[in-house]
């Protein structure tokens, strides 16, 4: 067994072990184990279905990117920081558009930061201090299985010595598996997050609300929750896609942030998103320091411009606004609206990924890569912005993402 750092979800559990020979793991959850176990791989680099060398695939990629008027370079949430950094510089060099998986996921949270900031904390503050934790629109037991044990509901630390020292609230539109671990489960009507948060703000302020119920939740239940929040010593809201991808989107998060601002006038509260892929945070942090923005960044004028819903991947494809696409460790063909995918069929697509997926089927250039965390090392951002180094457990013939993107960058620079 070798010490490993898991490269599946935003938990980035750094206490796991995996044996490459026996394919057995320790402390890995089902999702992590599935990630680490051997499965079908892309065998070789390919151009139009024909097997080629890495060097040929890199040259072809560079040729496509340099000749394109506006290439879209998308994905980046399941690779290491080193590869992302080269990816950003590459996009700048070719005057393309950089976008990452957040734009169909947690990006409304980024817009809320632009509006209001974010009063947050690292996962260790929840573990050590939080006596009330609210999971809102997220289902950690199924999406981030070890989150409750390692960081939140069941975690013990400086002030919290047992599960009894902490109250757990789950707010969701349906009774998820996570609801079972809650002291209080509040089922809300879909699309009413904003209204309910507004009601809570009023109640926390000490104002009355006229409605008897909001979003399917009786006023008394909301008043109880407001009291619970105010009387916490240190509270945390962890939110998920239930907030960012339902009616209201970024405004929901913004409203929740305002609730937290208000609660900090009484006691301590923080709020944090439950980010999905293991390095989706890095896919935003690195462009932020390299070019100033997190996603939806266009370089066609020679300098970066940020415009979500204009330069985000789905909208670019729907408008047929890109004439080539590079997909890094993602599967837009499976997850994007079919009209967007249709445009992908009409333009040259380059895929970099360890595993075959739907996008492989419509890619002109396919470049298989080493699996980060098993065959390649590098830095990644845990969901709370803490950087961990994922490890290389075994040698591989596959090039790492970092090497592939660096070679493409060099091949592009030779052509410019």
């Amino acid at each position, binding site marked *: 067994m070798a*010490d490993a*750092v898991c490269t599946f979800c935003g938990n980035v559990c*750094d*206490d796991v072990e995996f044996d490459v020979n026996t394919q057995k793991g320790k402390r890995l959850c089902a999702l992590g184990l599935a990630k680490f176990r051997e499965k079908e791989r892309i065998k070789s680099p390919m151009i139009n279905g024909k097997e080629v060398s890495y060097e040929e695939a890199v040259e072809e990629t560079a040729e496509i990117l340099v000749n394109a008027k506006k290439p879209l370079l998308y994905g980046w949430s399941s690779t290491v*920081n080193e590869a992302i*950094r080269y990816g950003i*510089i590459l996009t*700048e*060099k070719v005057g393309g558009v950089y976008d990452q998986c957040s734009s169909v996921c947690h990006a409304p949270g*980024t817009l809320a*930061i*632009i*509006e*209001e*900031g*974010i*009063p*947050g*904390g*690292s*996962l*260790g*503050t929840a*573990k*050590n*201090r939080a006596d009330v934790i609210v999971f809102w629109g997220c289902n950690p037991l199924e999406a981030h299985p070890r989150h409750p044990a*390692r960081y939140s509901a069941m975690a*013990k*630390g*400086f002030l919290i010595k047992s599960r009894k020292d902490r109250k757990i609230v789950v707010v969701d539109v349906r009774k998820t598996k996570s609801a079972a671990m809650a002291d209080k489960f509040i089922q809300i009507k879909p699309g009413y997050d904003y209204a309910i948060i507004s009601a809570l703000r009023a109640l926390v302020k000490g104002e009355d609300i006229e409605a008897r119920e909001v979003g399917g939740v009786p006023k008394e239940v909301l008043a109880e929750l407001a009291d619970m929040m105010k009387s916490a*010593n*240190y509270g945390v809201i962890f939110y998920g896609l239930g907030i960012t991808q339902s009616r209201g989107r970024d405004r929901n998060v913004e409203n929740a942030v305002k609730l937290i601002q208000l609660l*900090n*006038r*009484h*006691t*301590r509260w*923080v709020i944090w998103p439950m980010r999905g892929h293991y390095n989706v945070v890095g896919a*935003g*942090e*690195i462009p*932020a*320091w*390299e*070019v*100033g*923005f997190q996603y939806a960044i266009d*370089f066609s*004028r*020679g*300098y*970066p411009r*940020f415009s979500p819903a204009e330069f985000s991947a789905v909208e670019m494809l729907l408008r047929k606004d890109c004439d080539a696409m590079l997909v890094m460790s993602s599967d837009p063909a499976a997850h994007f609206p079919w009209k967007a995918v249709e445009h992908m069929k009409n333009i040259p697509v380059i895929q970099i990924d360890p595993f075959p997926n739907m996008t492989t089927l419509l890619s002109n250039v396919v470049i298989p890569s080493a699996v980060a965390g098993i065959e390649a090392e590098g*830095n990644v*951002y845990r969901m709370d*912005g*803490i*950087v*961990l*180094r994922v490890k290389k457990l075994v040698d591989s013939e596959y090039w790492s993402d970092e090497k592939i993107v660096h070679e493409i960058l060099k091949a592009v620079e030779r052509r410019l």
Partner: protein
Amino acid sequence: MLWIKNGIVVDPKNGIDAERMDIFVKNGKIVNEEDVRKEDCRVIDANNKLVVAGGVDMHAHIAGSKINVGRTMRPEEMRVVRQTAGKLRASMGRVLLTSPAIGYEYARMGYTTAVEAATPPIGAPHTHEELDSIPVVDKASLTVFGNWHPVFKYAADRDREKMKAFIAWALERTKGFGVKVVNPGGVEAWMYGGNVRNLDDEVPKWSVTPREIITELVNANEELNLPHSVHLHCNNLGVPGNYQTTIETIKLVSGIRNDSRQVLHVTHVQFNAYAGSSWRDVASGAAEIAKVVNSMDNVTIDMGQAIFGHATAMTSDAPFQFTLHKLTGSRWVNKDTEIEGGAGIVPITYMPKNPVHALQWAIGLELGLLVESDRVVLSTDYPNGGPYTEYPYVMAMLMSRRMREKELDRVSPYVQKATSLPAIEVEKTLYEVIEMTRSLPARVMGLESKGHLGTGADADIAIYNLNPNDLDPASQYDVVNREFRVPAYTIKDGEIIVKDGNLLKETWGRTYWVDARKKASVDSIDSDLNEFFTEYYTVRRENYGVAEYWMRKPERLEVN
């Protein structure tokens, strides 16, 4: 090899004040004339030009989670395009700059070294990734200690040996350069919604006070004999009346000596130099602080000058940032970090007609003028007080009373009664401002090869179109303010990076870190560390910190 010919050299460390002389460079170092073959030298005509060491910014927030979430929160900052992409990178930002822009703008001002002022320990890998993306300049980062639970424990126990071991361990793990302390105890109190208000307020759940934390850290730092002293952001920052806490804090180290440098550096003192009891009667406490600093020979400070215009407050002083958010109603980022401390970020605009902002602007200048030039470093606490690109403005202001009078005309009249600035006659000399921006910050940091032009120094050199023998800074302040923004040459490690204000190429500087493990028994805290990590951290001890091989160009300074 370079032969910088006929320049007018100002080199305070070596006592050279506007002497015409030649400087020779070989293998990135400054060498004696006989060590070069003149026919192989590239000659730089510095006739009647000012030749000085590259500038050293010893306190700026240039890398890590704080500035980066600042960028995320403020896309409006990125509407300023300083340079489009080409051979070099696109360079972006108004006050908050992208990493490429940070390196480029320092170089374009003749600065060649910059120190990140506050790294949350667990955030060190992030900080170093960003430092590795800043071109040209040499870098270092200061690790934040003052609210870290093990520090509370060893301070409360008065366990000097373990404190030293912990500092040595932590600096190695974070690849840090020195011991930064921010509002000691106050950030821990913020985890309960409070703050500490004086040096003897007990930290919640810990029987320890700010006084004890500071004293124990300073003593441990001195016994380790680290290159840099404790670097302190005082308690009560941004609170009217806080100048008394600052003075009391400074006096904590009277009697502690170090022959080569200060034993305490108090940073961005402008924010800690307020008299009065509320924002209604707030006034300057700068003169009193200056008196105390001048009376001691073991304390240095930096100004934390406020610049009118946009800025972004970002500090590990999380409770202060919440206060600022409540005060201005502006956006607010908070980040509590494991058991290590916290941070906050709030946008701010300093407006000349706002009495408080004008006061802050005046206090920074008072400190720069009233404190002797061998103990006050020029800084804006970038981006808290404003952009470092305005250092030339501050230099010109320090050198010219006439410029100050002109500027005073456009600011709130509140400063007339609340500060002594209008009455200050001091005009710093060119030699003194070169000291405040070069040799002094290098000495304060313990960077011996920086900030001067003596033999063996790094060939980090700035050449400006200013002839000291033909310049009256008091009346030609506009010339000073203009020319320090556009060096004729910036030379980094012997390479010409900037010519006539234009960036010629991108190079990559070193990142210095301090290894003090030989001076302490790190083994003595082994079981403590295991306990801290098992009980309180969310990462394993083995996965904590930064390895040298991840870094682009690490340079280890070993303390023997």
